[in-house]
């Protein structure tokens, strides 16, 4: 059984009256890609800052690699790679110099450092930009530089705090693929995001946070199993008489049926062949059927069901 790389127990962090972290307990095992998912202000970044001893906390304990974490725990810090939410690079240094600088905070051996820097540049695909200053890079390339600075020293534990904010889809995919590769190479990854698609894509285990508390934890399958909804059927129809809508709503395993703006939405809970049974009812009444889609539940549905609100704002 894999050992715990990170153990957070009963962590409490208060800012005056506001409780930013409310008795948070987490265990992250070696080799995992652990996702911290939650809306803005849910406590993800506060958790990371406490984890890294950048923030003091009121109660609880944090152990990394089996040892107590503290601001002076340099032997622990040397094995941690950090990619912050805000890009942290020197504007006056080139891509290569930036990576060399951050790598130099961890590695003193010149030859080893040079090799690590080269590998990091290749890893994030910035070979053609090594002499560029950060302000000449696009948002996506800048994020890649930020990642290279965080992983050049080959850490055992990599913490990424919303690394894809304001990044174009191409760079986002590149970043996510990179994280998966780092994990395959043996690194344990902690990944915070409010993009549920990203977390679903790369994380092996996920904790959902809200208002400083962990509200659910498990694999994505385990989390989705927590919801009543197993499938949502959408059918475009020109018209839908009320008696037909009621008939569909009365079908077994369908717990909700609505007709709004020409779309029939039927929410299912368990059962098999739900779509076929819905379509059979519609055909029986000789209704013209347009586009048909089925949607599997998402982590947003899990969040919605537990908290009664959406995971992130629409503009996100």
């Amino acid at each position, binding site marked *: 059984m894999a050992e715990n790389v990170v153990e957070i127990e009963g962590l409490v962090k208060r800012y005056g009256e506001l409780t930013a972290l409310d008795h948070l307990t987490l265990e992250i095992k070696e080799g995992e890609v652990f996702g911290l998912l939650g809306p803005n202000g849910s406590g993800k970044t506060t958790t990371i800052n406490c984890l890294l001893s*950048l*923030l*003091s906390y009121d109660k609880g304990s944090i152990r990394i690699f089996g040892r107590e974490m503290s601001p002076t725990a*340099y032997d622990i810090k040397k094995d941690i790679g*950090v990619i912050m939410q*805000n890009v942290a*690079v020197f504007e*006056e*240094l080139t891509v290569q110099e930036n990576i060399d600088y951050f790598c130099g*905070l961890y590695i003193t051996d010149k030859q080893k450092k040079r090799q690590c820097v080269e590998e990091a540049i290749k890893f994030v695909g910035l070979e053609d930009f090594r002499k560029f200053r950060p302000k000449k890079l696009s948002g996506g390339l800048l994020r890649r530089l930020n990642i290279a600075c965080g992983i050049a020293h080959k850490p055992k534990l990599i913490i990424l705090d919303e690394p894809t904010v304001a990044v174009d889809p191409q760079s986002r995919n590149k970043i996510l693929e990179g994280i998966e590769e780092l994990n395959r190479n043996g690194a344990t990854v902690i990944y915070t995001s409010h993009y549920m698609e990203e977390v679903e894509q790369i994380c092996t285990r996920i904790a959902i946070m809200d208002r400083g508390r962990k509200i659910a934890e498990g694999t994505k399958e385990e989390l989705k199993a927590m919801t009543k909804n197993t499938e949502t059927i959408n059918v475009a129809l020109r018209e839908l008489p009320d008696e037909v809508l009621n008939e569909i709503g009365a079908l077994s395993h369908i717990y909700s049926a609505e007709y709004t703006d020409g779309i029939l939405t039927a929410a299912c809970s368990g059962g098999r062949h739900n779509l076929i049974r819905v379509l059979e009812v519609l055909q029986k009444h000789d209704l013209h059927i347009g586009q048909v889609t089925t949607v599997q539940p998402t982590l947003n549905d899990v969040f919605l069901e537990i908290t009664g609100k959406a995971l992130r704002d629409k503009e996100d």
Partner: protein
Amino acid sequence: MFFNEFRYNLLTTLRDRHFIMWLILFPMALGSLFKAAFSDIYENDIKFSPIPTAIVQTQKDDIFKEVIRSVSKGKDALLKVTYADSAEEAEKLLKDGKVAGVITKDGTLGLTVASNGMDTTILKAFTDRYLTEEKLIKDTLEKDPMKLPALTAALKDDLKTVKKVRLTDGVSDPYITYFFNLLAMVAACSSVTGLNVVMQNQADQSPLGARKGCSPTPKLISTLAVLAGCWLTGMMCTAISVSFLAFVLKVDFGSRLGFVYLAAMMGGIMGTSMGFMIGSLVKGSYEKKNAVAMVISLGGSFLSGLMIADIKPDIMEKAPLVNALNPTAVVCDSFYYLNLDADYDRFIGKMVTMLVMTVLFTAVGFIFTRRKKYAGL
């Protein structure tokens, strides 16, 4: 780890265009402006002008005639001579203010002057010197007349020195003080580089600070390395300014240029440490810290006479403590004392004050950065 921090801090600072602008180019521009503004005044007021003198010679004296001819010819003449036929005519010239003095040579050598002043002092020195060296001049003229020009040239130079020494004596020369103040301002403005020590090493100040806080480099080493880099840049800035003033603008700092460099560079170190202290004491954004640093630096420069030269003597008289505690004034005073005093006692005193201030500022900076708990991160 120390060298990594030191090296890259130096690189980032030297590539920072704001730094280059304010600590290198701006002082050069201001120095050039001062030079342009004061060069005419130098030419007119400070450059030695021959002293208008009336000569009344009633007896034939070839030695005297030759000496007067020698000291009144050429671009570096000591006297501007008007020969009068009679004592009355010479007195009229003196009365009308057309000459500063009348030298009469009959059996003896006489000097009549209208009032006391620099020119009178020199004329008196000239006549005294002539009387003491008359025999030497006579012997030279008789035995080796070729050596007479060298002898009279030495006489001229010695007497001109009387005027030069007096002119650079203390506050009577208001122009060099502007350049002293300019150097002191550069030293004080080095505080903006000192702010970087805090910005780069405090987790609650910048993403870079937070990022570095996660690394295994101890904060003390990191802070010391960045501070050392900033000290070096502060020293470089002041040294560049001294070099530009001394060798490009040809500002005359006298024979103690090496000590001017030393005082300026010490000032740069002190200014940097002051910035470190301001950065750690003032809460809030970089802009706020920078504003405080600039107000203190430029305010200090104002009080030490950068904008109005006469303000400093007033402050020294009415509020000596302000002058003693103003870092810019301390740097400025070190230059004054270097320029005024024959010995180094007061200069060393100011250097020690700068050193003490540096230690104090650095210590306060360290104490307040170590106390941060990052509650507001």
